[in-house]
């Protein structure tokens, strides 16, 4: 009797762990993003150093409570439209990431060209452990047109 019951009890205790582990496995492999060319990454980095580094820091880790980090966040990996608008319009703080808030204002940077914005966003989306699709100058152009 004891021999039969024990595995059942064990399963009941461990089932949540086992099932939880299984749900973490990807159901279907995501399509592989094409590698970003070095030229684009270099150009994007140059824009980053000039305009972003002071607040978001060299490693994209930001500043706790003040300036949002750029590592695998819903902002960086999410909607390109939101990201482009963030650069064109800036923000007045209170960005929220996983329950943390960041309070410093971000200046709008409309003086950057469509190409510069595309490059820097592509750089950010593919640096600091991020992996996301490229942003093209054409996409920036159409988003900018809708803002005006």
């Amino acid at each position, binding site marked *: 009797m004891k021999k039969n019951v024990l595995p059942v009890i064990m399963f009941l205790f461990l089932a949540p762990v086992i099932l939880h582990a299984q749900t973490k496995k990807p159901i279907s492999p995501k399509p592989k993003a094409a590698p970003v060319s070095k030229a684009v990454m270099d150009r994007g980095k140059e824009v980053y150093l000039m305009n972003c580094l002071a607040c978001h820091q060299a490693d994209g880790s930001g500043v706790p409570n003040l300036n949002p980090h750029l590592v695998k966040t819903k902002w960086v990996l999410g909607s390109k439209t939101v990201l482009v608008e963030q650069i064109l319009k800036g923000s007045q703080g209170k960005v929220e990431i996983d329950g943390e808030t960041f309070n410093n204002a971000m*200046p709008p940077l409309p003086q950057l060209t469509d190409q510069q914005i595309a490059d820097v966003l592509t750089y950010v989306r593919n640096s600091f452990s991020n992996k996301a699709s490229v942003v093209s100058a054409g996409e920036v152009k159409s988003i900018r047109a809708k803002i005006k």
Partner: protein
Amino acid sequence: MKKLLILFLGILSIINVQTVLANDSTVVKTTLPVDDIKLPPGFKATIVAGKLGRARHLVVNTNGDIYVKLERLRNGKGIVRLRDTNGDGKADDSMYFGNYVGTGITIKNGYLYASSNSEVFRYKLNEKNEVANPDAPEKIITGLVDQRTHNSKSIVLDNDGNIYVNIGAPTNACQVQDRTKGSPGQEPCPILEKAGGIWQFKADGKNQSYGEGVRFATGLRNVVGLDWNGQTNSLFVMQHGRDQLSNLYPEMFNDQQSAELPAEEMFELKKGADCGWPYCYYDQQQNKKVLAPEYGGDGKQVGRCEGVTKPVVAFPGHLAPNGLLFYTGSLFPEKYKNGAFIAFHGSWNRAPLPQKGFFVAFVPFKDGKPSGEWEIFADNFAGMENISSPGQAEYRPCGLSQGPDGALYVSEDAKGTIWKITYKP
């Protein structure tokens, strides 16, 4: 089957341990080595408590109870009282109260005072020297500016029944558009009416706001560390200087200059003092207040900055002084008596140059004036030599308090650690 049972129990115990760690409602004993913190010979730092989260300022009562103000609610509360009941130097008892986040906390004349980011409360201490009604504080100040940036309200009392509250300016340099290249400074800066200074209120007042308070000093961008100096009977404050000189004015400042300038300033404030922000900043290399570029300055011109209050001590730029304490104890050597300890939170705006700060500094004082150069007292809170981003820092010092035995307590808000620093010759 036996092996299987052992494996099963092993897995269960791991799960249980994780549950305990995730559910740490009481003080967690930390295993971090205490000698991480570098101190002068004879001094020793021990960790009293850890993992409190955003532990901002703290105050130690005459009975040894430690009150810590939290900038993130913990168990739904924003103040924790820590107590060491068995005398082993570690807090083993904690009590949480106050349903608001904030920074300021102090004790004076039988009351515990604590601030949210827009209000100040006080709690009467009973005959046992404990907070009598933790859930029913008196609201003494309300309605202060809180626009997130620079919103912490540090507090200190004088010996005449007044409380002083810093109200930080919610901006970098009062530009029309904050932190934006090419945006001019507002003239006059409208922020100064309700922020960018120190306000004085009655310590026993009720629901006081700007109408009942006095703007005691102005032209202070953001003060977090402040203390009342009993020797001089005056208020001393630490200002966080403005950011981004090279970012906003690359034609005038290079990154090296921007990393060092402007100074973080210690002021002794007389009523009516104007310390110059946003129109002026202090250049510690030229030893003078100069006109800010947003107001026509070029890094050298003085202009309207002639005559604004000068600092009594100037520190390198961006180190973020968050705690100030005049040491009145007798535990430490004579040199430290009446001198100032300053907790530096550590910089972010020195990038692309390496970040600095993450230490507790000391300035010797004699007859109410600085009597020597400032020095690093407690170092290596960052836990590493070269630090490029503040997120890499292990600890970020924030608050200071003196214990009844003359020990120095330090709080930090990266993880929420409290140290007690003692001395034995």
